[in-house]
C-alpha cells in the first residue's frame, strides 16, 4: 500500500480544491443582496478538517481576516455536535456568536459536514457579513455597547438544516431579528447556494480521484504548509523581540490600552506572547480568542505572502494570549470594534518581527478603520445614514515608499466613490485629497494619509465616529519614523472642535453648511530618514507631499540644494 501521494497529482488536486473554494466565493458574491458581501467581498469559504476544523483550503477572494478565523467557526460546530452527539448527513449549522467563531456578530457562519459513503470526510463552511442582525444600532457598529446583547442578536451554533430538512423555525427567528429581512434571506440563500456548489464539486473531485487519494492530498497540503513555514522561520535568526503599542481608549474611559507582544524564534519555531496587554474593557474594543489567533495568522501571512491558506502554517507558531486580557474577552463582553484592536495587534507583530528581519517587514500602516456615520432626516421626512470607512497610508518597506491611501491590512474593501456618496446622501465633499506631511519619515517613507472634509447640505444631522490612532502614531521600522496621527474635527457655530476622546464620538450635531474633517494617518517609514536621498525629499516637496518646513524638520536641509 502506497501511502504517499505523487507530487504532480498533489499539485493538480490542490488547484482543483482551491478552485472549489474560489467557486464558492464567486457564487456568493454574485448572489448576495447586500453590498458588503457583493462589493466589499466581506465573506469567505473553504474546506475544513473533519476532526480538528483546521483550514484545509480557502478561497482567495474573501476577506483576509477570515483566512485564520474560519477554523474556529468549524471547531465550534464540531464541539457542539460532539456535545449533543447527533451529527448526521444533510445537516447544516448556522451561528453568529463571535466569542465562539471570532470577528463580530455581523458575520453569519454556515457550517456543513460533508459525508462520503456514510463517513464524515470534511466540513464546508461559508461566512458572510450580513447587513443587519438586530441590536441597538442599524448595521451593528455600536460604539457605546457594553455587552454583546446591545450589538446584535446572538445565535449559537444550531441546525438550520437537519438531515436535509430545512428548520423553518430557525429561519423565522432570523427573519424576526433583522431590520432588513429581504437582504438577510438573500444572503442566506446565497450562502446555502455556495455550500451546495462546494458539495457538488467535492462529489465530482472524489469521483475522479477517490477518497483515499484526496485524503492523502489534504494531509500532504498541511504538511507542505508546515514545511514552508518552517523553511521561512529557519532563515530567520533566533532570538526574542518585544514591541508595545496602544489603543487611544475604549470609547468610554479616556485611558490608553497597551497591546504588547514578545516574538520569539527558536530554530523553526515561533511564539507570539501577548502578556502585558490591557485587560478586558467596558467598551467594544475587545476581541475573542479566535480572533486573536486568526489575527496572528494574518500578520504572518503579510510577512510571508507566499504561504498557503492552510492551518499547517500555524503548527510551528505558538500564540499565547493571557486570560482576562482584551484579546481573549469572554461572552458577553462587547467586540463590535474588533477591527481597531486587530489592526493594532498586526502593528505590534510587525514592529517585533522587523527587529528580527527588517527586510521582510513593512512599517505600520495607518491602523484605523475610521467608521464614520452621518445620519439625519431629509425635508420629506425620510431618514438617511451615510456609513463608510476611510483609507490611509501604508508603511514603507525595503523595496520603496509606502502606498498612498490604501485599505486596511485586514480587508481588501474599496471606498465608495465620492460622487456615489454625494448622489445618495445630502453631503458635499469640500476636500477628498492626500494629506501632506502625514507620511512617516524614513529612507523609504510611509504612504500618505488622506483628508476628507464633508459638508452637510440638509438642515441638521448627527455624526458618530469610531476611530483610533488619535494619540499614538503608526510606527516606523528599522529606524523609520512614525506617520501622522488621526485628526478629527467638526464645525460648530463657534468654529472647529475636537472630540474629547480624540477619534471616538457619538451624537455630534451638525447644521446645514457645517462640516466634519477627517485627516487619516500616514504609514510609518522604513529605515532612518537620514538615509533618504536628498533628490527624493526634493521631489516630495516639489509634488507637495511634504511642506518645505517639515522636509527640513524630518530630513535636514540638504534637499534644498538638490533639484528634484
Amino acid at each position, binding site marked *: 500500500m502506497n501511502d504517499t501521494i505523487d*507530487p504532480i497529482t498533489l499539485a493538480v488536486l490542490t488547484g482543483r480544491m482551491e478552485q472549489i473554494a474560489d467557486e464558492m466565493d*464567486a457564487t456568493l458574491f454574485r448572489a448576495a443582496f447586500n453590498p458588503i458581501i457583493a462589493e466589499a467581498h466581506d465573506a469567505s469559504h473553504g474546506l475544513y478538517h473533519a476532526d480538528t476544523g483546521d483550514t484545509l483550503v480557502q478561497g482567495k477572494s474573501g476577506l483576509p481576516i477570515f483566512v485564520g478565523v474560519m477554523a474556529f467557526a468549524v471547531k465550534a460546530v464540531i464541539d457542539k455536535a460532539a456535545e449533543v452527539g447527533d451529527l448526521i448527513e444533510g445537516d447544516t449549522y448556522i451561528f453568529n456568536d463571535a466569542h465562539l467563531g471570532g470577528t463580530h456578530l455581523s458575520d453569519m457562519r454556515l457550517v456543513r459536514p460533508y459525508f462520503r459513503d456514510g463517513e464524515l470526510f470534511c466540513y464546508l463552511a461559508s461566512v458572510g457579513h450580513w447587513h443587519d442582525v438586530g441590536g441597538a444600532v442599524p448595521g451593528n457598529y455600536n460604539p457605546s455597547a457594553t455587552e454583546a446583547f446591545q450589538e446584535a442578536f446572538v445565535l449559537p451554533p444550531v441546525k438550520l438544516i437537519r438531515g436535509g430538512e430545512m428548520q423553518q423555525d430557525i429561519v423565522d427567528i432570523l427573519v424576526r431579528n433583522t431590520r432588513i429581512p429581504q437582504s438577510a434571506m438573500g444572503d442566506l440563500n446565497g450562502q446555502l447556494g455556495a455550500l451546495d456548489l462546494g458539495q457538488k464539486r467535492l462529489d465530482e473531485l472524489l469521483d475522479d480521484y477517490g477518497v483515499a487519494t484526496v485524503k492523502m492530498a489534504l494531509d500532504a497540503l498541511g504538511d507542505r504548509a508546515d*514545511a514552508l513555514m518552517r523553511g521561512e522561520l529557519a532563515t530567520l535568526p533566533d532570538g526574542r523581540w518585544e514591541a508595545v503599542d496602544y489603543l487611544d481608549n475604549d470609547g468610554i474611559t479616556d485611558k490608553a490600552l497597551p497591546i504588547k507582544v514578545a516574538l520569539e524564534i527558536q530554530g523553526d519555531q515561533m511564539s507570539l506572547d501577548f502578556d502585558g496587554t490591557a485587560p478586558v474593557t467596558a467598551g467594544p474594543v475587545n476581541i475573542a480568542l479566535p480572533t486573536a489567533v486568526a489575527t496572528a495568522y494574518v500578520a504572518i501571512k503579510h510577512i510571508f505572502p507566499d504561504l498557503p491558506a492552510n492551518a499547517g502554517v500555524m503548527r510551528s507558531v505558538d500564540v499565547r494570549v493571557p486570560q482576562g486580557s482584551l484579546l481573549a474577552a469572554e461572552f458577553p463582553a462587547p467586540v463590535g470594534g474588533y477591527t481597531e484592536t486587530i489592526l493594532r495587534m498586526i502593528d505590534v507583530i510587525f514592529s517585533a518581527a522587523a527587529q528580527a528581519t527588517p527586510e521582510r517587514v513593512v512599517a505600520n500602516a495607518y491602523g484605523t478603520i475610521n467608521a464614520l456615520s452621518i445620519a439625519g432626516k431629509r425635508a420629506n421626512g425620510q431618514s438617511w445614514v451615510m456609513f463608510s470607512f476611510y483609507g490611509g497610508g501604508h508603511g514603507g518597506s525595503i523595496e520603496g515608499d509606502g502606498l498612498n491611501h490604501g485599505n486596511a491590512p485586514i480587508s481588501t474593501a474599496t471606498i465608495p466613490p465620492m460622487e456615489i456618496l454625494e448622489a445618495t446622501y445630502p453631503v458635499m465633499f469640500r476636500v477628498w485629497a492626500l494629506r501632506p506631511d502625514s507620511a512617516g519619515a524614513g529612507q523609504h517613507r510611509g504612504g500618505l494619509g488622506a483628508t476628507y472634509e464633508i459638508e452637510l447640505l440638509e438642515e441638521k444631522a448627527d455624526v458618530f465616529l469610531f476611530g483610533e490612532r488619535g494619540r499614538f502614531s503608526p510606527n516606523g521600522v528599522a529606524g523609520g519614523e512614525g506617520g501622522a496621527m488621526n485628526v478629527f474635527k467638526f464645525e460648530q457655530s463657534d468654529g472647529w472642535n475636537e472630540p474629547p476622546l480624540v477619534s471616538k464620538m457619538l451624537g455630534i450635531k451638525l447644521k446645514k453648511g457645517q462640516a466634519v474633517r477627517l485627516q487619516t494617518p500616514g504609514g510609518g517609514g522604513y529605515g532612518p530618514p537620514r538615509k533618504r536621498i536628498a533628490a527624493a525629499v526634493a521631489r516630495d516637496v516639489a509634488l507637495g507631499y511634504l511642506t518645505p518646513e517639515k522636509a527640513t524638520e524630518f530630513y535636514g536641509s540638504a534637499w534644498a540644494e538638490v533639484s528634484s
Partner: protein
Amino acid sequence: MTRLIGVDVGGTFTDIFVLDEESGTASVSKVPTTWPDQSDGFLDGIARQVDDLSTVGVVVHGTTAGTNALLERKGAKIGIITTHGLRDVLEMRRRDRPQTWGLRGAFEPIVPRDLRLEVSERTLADGTVRTPVDLDEVLRAAQLLLDLECVAVAILFANSYANSENEQTAVEAVRKFWPNPHVSSSSEILPEIREFERFSTTALNAYLQPEVSGYINRLDTALKGDGFGGEFMIVQSNGGVMGTDSACRQPVRTALSGPAAGVMAAGCIAQTAGFENVITGDMGGTSFDVAIIADGKSMLSQQTSIDFGMVIRAPMIEITTIGAGGGSIAWVDRGGFLNIGPESAGAMPGPVAYAQGNTRPTVTDANVVLGRIDPNSPIGGKLDRLDVKAAANAIAEHVGSKLNLSSEEAAEAILRVANSRMAGAIRLVSIERGFDPKRFVFMPFGGGGALHTAAMLRDVGIGRAIIPRYPGVISAMGCVIADMRQDFVQTINARTMTLDVEGLRDCMQSHIDVGMAALDTAQSRFTTRDIVVELDMAYVGQTHTVAVPLSVTVVDGTVATPTQAEIEAAFDKAYLATFSRLLRNGDRRIMNLRTAVVGKRPKFDLSALAPIGGSVETARTGSRPVHFGNAWYQTVIYDRLKLPVGSEIRGPAILVQPDTTVLIDPGLTGRVDAFGNTVIELSEV
C-alpha cells in the same frame, strides 16, 4: 475597390488578412513588427499582398499602440485641471492595494501631482451649479501646464455627469487656447457617475492621444500616398470598428483593440461552423487569455485595469488572463511542490530550447522535450532549430531531480500542472458567469493553444475543440469581420416611480443621432443598423447594478418613449434571471443609460477559406516519436493546410502549419470541416 484588408500588429509579428469580396478568396501573411515605428511593418505587410492599393476598399487595423503606451507608460506628458479639493482623486484611486498579501508596492499616477491643478468651480450631485467656473483660473492653469511642457490636457470636474455646464465652459475656453487638439473632458469621454473611474479614463485618453493619433495619422498619410482611396478604420476594445477621426479623439477605446478583434473572429468562425457557445483560449508567451462567447455574443465588461490603478471604463470584450503561457517557468518550491509561473521567460530570452540565455525550464521546453514541437522547424522562423538537449537538462535539473522523476516524467508533470491551471481558468470564467463549460466548444488560437486541447476536453469536460484554419492570424481576420459600433453612456440616477421618461427618451435620441451620423459618413456598406439599449439598474440601496436590456422602437430615426411599466418589467426579468428572486415592493432605480449603435457589415463566406482538393495521403509529411502519458508513440505528421475537407485523423497525430502546431492526442480524432477548421473530439471507440 472590392478588397478588404485586416491588419493586426502584435509584439512580434504583423499579420495581414486580405479578403477579395468579388472572387471570394482570402490570403494571409505575416511580417516582423517594426520598432519603434510600427507603420513600416504595417505598410510592408500590405505591399506583399497587394500591388495596387486603389483596388482596396477598406483597411481595418487592430492596434496595440495604445496598449503598449499604457503598459510601458510611454504616453505623453499631460496635465489635468480639476475641481478645487479634488486634485488627488487620480492618485487615491478607490483605496485599494496592488496585492492582497504583503502590503508592498506603491503607485505612480500617470500625471504627477504638480501637473494636477485645481480651479474654483463646483456642481452638486443633483446638477445644481454651486460655484460657477472661474475661467481666468482655468486659463491660468492651462498656461501653467503649457509652461511645464504638457502636450495634452484633461478637464475633470466633479459631478459633470449630472451637469456638464461648468466643465464644458472650461473645455471650450481651453480648446480655444490650447495649441493642439489634445484636450479631453470627462463629460465627453464618459458622462457616468464615479469620479475616479471617469477621471482615470479621461486622463488616460489624454495620455494616449498625442501618441495614438500621431501613429494613426502617419498610417493614414502613408496609405493615401500609396494610392489608397478607401476607408481606414480602427478596431475598438468593444470588438467594433470606428473611423480614424473617432480613434484620434478617443484613443482610450483602442486599449484592447487587437485581442478584441481575435474574439470577434473566433465567434464568427464558431458560429459559421455551427457552435453558438465558445470559450476561446489564446496562449502566448507569458499568458493564457480566455474569453467567452455565449449564444453567439461575446461578453462585454464595462471596465478593466490595464495595471494597478490604471482603470479604463469603457465597454470591452471581456478577456481573463492567467500567467500560464509557453514561456512560464516551472519550479519546485521548498515544500516540494511543482509550480508554473508567474515568472516567465517571455519571448526574450524565451524557453531554454531557444538557447538565448534562459536556463530555467518553461512550458514550451516540456513540449519540446516530449516531441510535441518540431525542433527542426520552430514556429515563427526566427530560429533555425531548437536545443532539445538543453531543454531536457534544464527540466532534469530544476524539476526532475527534485521530484525524483526522469526528464520525460518531469516534462509530462509540467504539462499536467500547466494544463490544470488553464483548465481551472476556463472553469472559473464560465462558472462565475453562470455557464456550464460542458455546453461550450473550446477554440484555441495563438501559437501554443492548439498543443493543449486534450486537457481542456478531458479536465474541463468540454465536448469538442475547434481550431480555426488560420489560428495565427485570427485578430487580423477579426478586423475584416467586425461591425462598426459606437457605445454611449449617460448617468440617469433616477427612481423608476419618478422617472422623467421623456428626458430618458431625449437622451437615447441624442445617442442614436450621433451614432447614425457616424454610420452615414462611413464609406462602408451596412446590411442592417442595430440599436441596442441597456439600463444599469438596481433596487434603491443596492450598489451593484444589473444590465437590463430594453427593447425600443425606432421609426425613421426617431425613438419612441418607453413607459415606466416597460422599464420595470424589463428590470424584473433581468433581475430574476441573475438572482432568481425579486424584492417585493422594492423601489427600482436607473443608474445609467447605455446605447450602442451598430452598423452590421456584410459577412463574407468563410468557406472561401476551405481547402480545395488534396488528400490525407499527400498531406502526410512523415512521423516522429512523441511522448503522451507515459510512453513514446510514433506519431504521424501532416501538413495541415493540405488536408481536404472531411479528412478524419485519429490521434496520436500532429498537424503542422507555418505558425501553429495542432496536437491530436491518443484517443482523440480530428476532422476537417467544410470551412477548413479542425474539429477535435474524443474518438468513438
